[in-house]
């Protein structure tokens, strides 16, 4: 884990990069993310981690850590992103194995 574990060639990194830059791509991702994962050439291991929002696994595979809370926000929304928000709780549940709001 950590930024030093980033794999710049990993398809998941390119996917996160691009959907945040383009709202049309983001909507398309939300509507059919299986299709989009296929287009980006994610491995089965990556796809399964996306499906279960296993952010820890995605980090282990080489997704940049900065993207992990953003992936949570891709699914849970980014507004009012405080520590007890759905996006933060999903992040904490996956990466820290405990709810964030308790800290």
């Amino acid at each position, binding site marked *: 884990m950590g930024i030093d574990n980033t794999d710049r060639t990993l398809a998941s990194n390119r996917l996160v*990069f691009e959907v945040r830059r383009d*709202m049309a791509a983001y909507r398309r991702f939300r509507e059919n993310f299986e299709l989009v994962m296929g287009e980006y050439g994610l491995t089965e291991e990556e796809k399964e981690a996306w499906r279960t929002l296993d952010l820890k696994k995605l980090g282990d595979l080489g997704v940049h850590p900065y993207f992990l809370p953003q992936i949570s926000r891709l699914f849970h929304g980014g507004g009012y992103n405080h520590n007890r928000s759905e996006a933060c709780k999903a992040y904490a549940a996956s990466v820290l194995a405990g709810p964030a709001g308790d800290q």
Partner: protein
Amino acid sequence: MGEIVLTIALAHAPGLTGWLDQAPQDQQQRLRDGYQEMGRIVRAAKPDTIIGLANDHILNFQFDNPPNFCIGTADIWHGPAPWFKDWLNVPDYTVKGNRDLAHTLVREGDRAGVRFAYSDSLLFDDNWSVPLFYLTPDHDVPLVPIHMNCILPPLPTPAECFRVGEVIAEIVRTRRPARERIILMATGGLSHDPGGPAYFNVDEAFDRWFLSLLEEGNPQRVLKEATIERMKQAGDGGTSELLAWIAAMGAVGGRRARTICYEPAVELRCGMGGVVWEMA
């Protein structure tokens, strides 16, 4: 010859605009007061242009060819980028660029041995949106944004970043019109760890140590002690945004920083605050 009339460095975490109401009341107040005080200092310096230095958050720097420094060359900028609007909760804004200054930095950087990538289509997120909301709420001061690679290893070394600040100051001094007034503004840090195990922590001891180091006015000691390793220990995923501060420090010589405010803002998931170097 132009002049850097003020150098400033401050944290830009999105909670400051997005969910500040979640922080304790007294901390909210101290942060608002501090950031507004920095705004008064910035506007009192009557800048013609702000040259900004901030982490890119891997929003514009692509994985296949990330530069370490990229200068925004557009005539006009719009923020925030769409996907970040609800996160940041700031009004949409437009701010002028300064293409002539930006091109000068690119060209003269090459000659000074510092490579700047350049782009006229940078997307803005919290890196500029949060600081500008407090410092120049009317968005009436042109901005030349310099995006940096602070989080995608290998990172530029503190010495390389410091050199960038030295070169920017030298270019402003020697290659710009007489009496052009420039503010150098670094944004990023302090301790935080977006996406890492310390996501919900702040390393207050590190932050206070780092600020006290800047207050000493001994850049060589900062370069020696504020290593990337040390930053990463204080929050692997984000603290190295302080490389932007170290770049700014390259322009201040032996001046001492003055801390305007500091708060270990756990609810904002970031050590928040800022310093100024008065350049007179």
